[in-house]
């Protein structure tokens, strides 16, 4: 290397050092100004992926409008049970990263009894549910405290084919007769499709039939006594099993969940379907074989299936989380969700709103249905009770045993469970 190159090389490190120092100063300056202002409080919410997607525009708007309070939504798994797993795993050791959790209605007593939830009356007042439809108010309070604010309030509905009949059935008997007729004539392979797989959906279906016969899961007034061996419960079980044995509902129902039922009905293969309100929008989509030929009706107490926000104990900012909760479930957000995604609003005012009705033709049905719904037993051991019922019903549906024996066994096991639960339930 020539001698002339040396001095040039010597300058390089010094220039580089000065540049680095300048960059560092700029960085410190920026960081300093960033640190000078208060960091916004971040309220983190865990909700299933579909809800997270649906509320994303709302949340983005909120975050734009509020500089000091930001909502961070974590997309949980699609599957209800997987979300519960994730939430429970997070909660098991106390230190959870979430402030709010979007919960299914059946989880409330369990999470409350486990000490994972923050009571809401101190933060939101005793009348936080005032103005909500009666059916939506159920399932949020337990053991003297308010634990959750409902976001959407679904209930079981009967979907019927307007091109196969003039008027929908008004009772279970009419439903069965109509379905039997259509299936018998070969018009459709499935007279009536419902959720018969051995899972929570089966309990929901059975509860509706049970209420249709005037029975109850737990004896009213005595919350520790199951009523599954009552004549009404046996009649309900016989009715459900009878659908399969008489061929109105094919045996394949033993593996049908909501999605499968929707597939079958949406392909035009069924005259009636039991499903949640979400199915309506799905059936009106362009690819559906029955678009425009579907009606919806409620035959009485539909099983209530609401999703609501709860605050997790140990949240670092309960006040802000409560504010977010109130905003999320407030009328404005509710309206937006109803208009854009067809989510069932919980506010009576929205259910009565004529403008909303124009965009949601289903609204009158929802309004009527939410006046009276069937709530699944509000007890921390609900999962065990439902599990017992599912097992017996699934055996009955697949052709083994009698309704009397199945219900007697369900009653016996439920009694054991509730006895062990004792005062907590």
């Amino acid at each position, binding site marked *: 290397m020539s001698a002339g190159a040396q001095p040039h090389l010597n300058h390089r490190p010094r220039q580089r050092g000065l540049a680095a120092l300048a960059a560092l100063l700029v960085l410190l300056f920026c960081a300093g100004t960033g640190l000078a202002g208060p960091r916004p409080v971040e309220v983190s919410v*865990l909700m*299933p*992926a*579909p*809800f*997270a*997607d649906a509320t994303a525009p709302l949340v983005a708007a909120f975050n734009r409008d509020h500089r000091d309070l930001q909502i961070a939504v*974590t*997309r*949980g*798994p*699609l*599957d*209800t049970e*997987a979300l519960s*797993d*994730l939430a429970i*795993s*997070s909660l*098991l*050791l*106390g*230190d959870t*990263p979430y402030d709010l959790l979007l919960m299914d209605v059946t989880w409330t007593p369990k999470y409350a009894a486990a000490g994972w939830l923050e009571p809401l009356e101190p933060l939101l007042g005793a009348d936080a549910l005032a103005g909500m439809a009666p059916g939506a108010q159920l399932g949020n309070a337990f053991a003297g405290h308010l634990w959750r604010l409902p976001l959407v309030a679904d209930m079981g509905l009967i979907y019927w084919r307007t091109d196969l009949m003039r008027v929908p059935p008004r009772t279970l008997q009419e439903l069965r007769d109509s379905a039997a007729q259509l299936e018998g004539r070969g018009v459709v392979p499935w007279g009536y499709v419902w959720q018969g797989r051995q899972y929570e959906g089966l309990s929901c279906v059975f509860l509706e039939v049970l209420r249709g016969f005037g029975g109850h899961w737990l004896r009213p007034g005595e919350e520790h006594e199951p009523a599954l061996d009552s004549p009404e419960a046996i009649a309900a079980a016989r009715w459900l099993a009878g659908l399969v044995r008489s061929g109105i509902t094919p045996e394949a129902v033993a593996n049908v*969940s*909501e*999605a499968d039922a*929707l*597939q*079958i009905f*949406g*392909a035009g293969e069924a005259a009636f379907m039991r*499903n*949640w309100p*979400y*199915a309506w*929008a*799905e059936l009106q*989509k362009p*690819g*559906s*074989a029955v678009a425009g030929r579907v009606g919806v009706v409620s035959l009485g107490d539909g099983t209530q299936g609401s*999703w609501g926000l709860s605050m997790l104990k140990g949240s670092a900012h309960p006040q802000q989380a409560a504010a977010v909760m109130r905003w999320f479930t407030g009328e404005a957000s509710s309206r937006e969700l109803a208009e854009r995604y067809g989510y069932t609003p919980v506010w009576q005012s929205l259910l009565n709103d004529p403008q909303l009705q124009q965009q949601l033709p289903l609204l009158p049905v929802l309004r009527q249905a939410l006046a009276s719904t069937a709530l699944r037993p509000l007890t921390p051991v609900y999962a065990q009770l439902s599990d017992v019922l599912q097992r017996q019903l699934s055996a009955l549906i697949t052709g083994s045993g009698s309704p009397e024996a199945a219900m007697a066994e369900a009653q016996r096991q439920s009694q054991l469970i509730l006895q062990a639960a004792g005062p907590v339930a």
Partner: protein
Amino acid sequence: MSRTSLPLLLAALGWSLMPLLWQLLTSLRTAEALVLQGAGAWLQGWTLDNYRLVLQGDPPFWRYLLNSSLVGAASTGLTLLLAIPAAYGLQRQRPALRGALSLALLAAAMFPYVLLFLALLELARALGWGNQLLALALPYAGLSLPLAVLLLRAAFADLPEELEDAARLEGLNLWQRLRRVLLPLLAPAIASTAILVFLFSWNEYPIALTWISRADLLTLPVAMARIAGSSVYAVPYGAFAAATVLGALPLLALVLVFQRQIVSGLTQGAVKG
């Protein structure tokens, strides 16, 4: 090739590929087309929407592939780092101790690990390892170690003693002996062990589900569980199928590249002891 081989071969390939090909088919169909019956059903309902849905998610799909690869690489690296010396040490023990330890490792290797995730979660929380990708490598390595140590020990057992003795006589210390003499001979076994560990960590679900909740840190199986339909009741078969196909491509590539090592590695003595 003999006469009986060809139909058997085709049967074997068909058996392996058929469900995957069906997933490929499902991924290209609309939800409505899935329920169409009759001959005309195949003339309509083709779409790339499922792939669009999967690829346009936020964060993007390749992010999950990256996360899974990172965790896989870290697990594999950590496992090999611990297993190779352990296998060497195990091989050099007295037969009684070796047998006892091998039996214990075998028992551990056979344990249904899904049962462990609850207790492991406690550990994670206690040590603050939640939401850290590289921390996942620790339980994965721990779960893979028994099998890895057993496989590598058998491979070590196959090497002739004279080789190492000669190297020792040349004055090489342990580290040099390993690096220059033993490990190159062990390459196929190491490769097959690495593939096993990598595949295990790529496909693992319950631990990844509970340790990681931040969307941009998810591994592939957990991310796939969050592919959403329009409601909690919708099962997006098409989107899942598309994600399966996309997730299978790197695995196919990996398996194609390393299939020789897997087989020959197992050949070299998976079964001793």
